[in-house]
């Protein structure tokens, strides 16, 4: 089932003063896909991610989500349409309980706090955090906080989930659990775009990889093909290694 893509990034450029962080970036994300967005430091991954999430608008180009032009929509409206995200540096509501953190996410779909609270608890079970439901978010360990961000984002019932370096700083065991969680999210029918700096984490997981360097897409395709692409090797290791 091909159908129209869920997300279409169409010639998006973003400048910060004279710096061009994203330069004519274009790609599409099919429904149900698991896409990896990779590239060396400063490649423009975070900028592109923030453009899709609605933190700021592009200087040029268009972003279409699920048939709607969202180029100028602010972040809360994008969440209502079905885009959810996590943050590279975790942003928990530290003074609130773990359950209430996730509840905030669930409330965008359901004004009834009781129903939303049940939904929030389901998400804690799904992410394996239900044992910590009554703790304050500020008391969680950092891998737990990453799970909390996932649970909170999933509680908004997204069609598209944006994961910003969710594996960063995890031990190999924690990363394996994280990968398992991402697989289960995808299996539940949610399209996922994950930004990762470390290729080894993403490549076995995703079915399509987009490589950015200096704000441009330099390669796009199946992960095994992308890692052999000379331009990709060069961008990561420098000229002469290809």
């Amino acid at each position, binding site marked *: 089932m091909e159908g129209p893509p869920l997300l279409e990034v169409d010639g998006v450029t973003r400048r910060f003063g004279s710096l061009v962080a994203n330069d004519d970036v274009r790609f599409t994300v099919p429904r149900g896909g698991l896409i990896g967005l990779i590239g060396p430091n400063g490649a423009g991954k975070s900028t592109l991610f923030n453009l899709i999430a609605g*933190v700021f608008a592009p200087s040029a180009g268009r972003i279409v989500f699920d048939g709607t032009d969202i180029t100028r929509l602010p972040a809360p409206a994008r969440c209502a349409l079905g885009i959810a995200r996590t943050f590279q540096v975790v942003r928990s509501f530290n*003074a609130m309980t773990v359950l209430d953190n996730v509840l905030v996410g669930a*409330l965008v779909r359901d004004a009834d706090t009781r129903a939303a609270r049940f939904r929030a608890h389901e998400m804690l079970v799904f992410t394996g955090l239900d044992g910590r439901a009554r703790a304050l978010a500020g008391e969680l360990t950092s891998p737990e906080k990453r799970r909390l961000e996932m649970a909170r984002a999933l509680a908004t019932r997204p069609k598209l989930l944006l994961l910003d370096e969710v594996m960063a700083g995890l031990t190999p065991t924690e990363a394996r659990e994280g990968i398992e969680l991402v697989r289960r999210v995808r299996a539940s029918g949610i399209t996922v775009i994950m930004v990762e700096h470390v290729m080894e984490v993403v490549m076995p997981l995703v079915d399509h990889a987009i490589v950015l360097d200096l704000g441009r897409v330099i390669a796009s395709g199946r992960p095994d093909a992308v890692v052999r692409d000379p331009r990709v090797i060069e961008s990561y290791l420098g000229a002469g290694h290809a």
Partner: protein
Amino acid sequence: MAQPQTIPAPITAFTSRRRRQLAVALAVALALALLPLAVADVFVMNILVLTILFASLSQSWNILGGYCGQISLGHAVYFGIGAYVTVALFVDFGILPWFGMLAGAAIAVVLALALGYPCFRLAGHYYTIATIVIAEAALLLVANAEWTGGAVGLQLPFAPDSWATLQFGRTKLPYYYLALGLAVATWIVSWVIEDTRAGYWWRAVNSDIAAAQSLGVNVFRSKMAASAVSAFFTAVAGGVYAFFVSYIDPTSVMSFHISLLISLPAVLGGIGTLWGPALGAIVLIPMGELTRSYFGGTGLGTNLIVYGVLVMAISLLRPQGLVSLVHLFVPRRA
């Protein structure tokens, strides 16, 4: 998990915690309702009325400052509007204070929204600074307007005791119950807000704006709504206060000192908590009155120095607010 009937443990725990809060509040309200039976002294009665009234005021402030995190140091504007509108409508047009208070509250809400529209685009400390500046400007406007009686203020005419006109010459007791009723109302409003969508959204805005936005929260609208609710109850309390003291002038209802008395109890008692404002008021208001009566006669501001030292001592010893004292006896369960 094919057991839709079982309610997860964290949810039952939450529900019973909410019920416990309500039960404690009911017990406290009952005890306070009986308290005047044990108090005959006029001086003590006066302090009690002020304490309960400022507990209610700080609880209203807490809705914006505690839950939504927008620290206002200009709430005297709403308080003053409530006081002036209620008294002026009664003196000039014979409109009963019950309706006057509602009119004052409505005007305060409109003003809160009008001020919020530009000010809530300011971040953090700039909002606080704006509230101070606006309150100072309002103080000058009121002191120079005609309908407010200018710097001289407004005096309620002497009238027979009546619940309709809220005039009581012989006893302060009716004002005690009026203040208590308002305090119970603002507590219940806070308690209800704590488990509404708006309540959770406000606390999310307070905690992390970017995260709140990513979860669909409209930050600007949240601040506006919290501000409106807060202004409404602050103005009602202003009306009650005016009839309690029966004479108002610009400095007694609209000065920076009033803004401090409204915000400090919540900050000291536990900002963003259900019982913080009341606990803070119980300590601060009698402390202010007592230091004034014991040290106020020197003419050197000794009372303010003693008061300031006590406030600093509390904030150093209990940085999470007085409510955190509870955890000395009741351990927090994780």
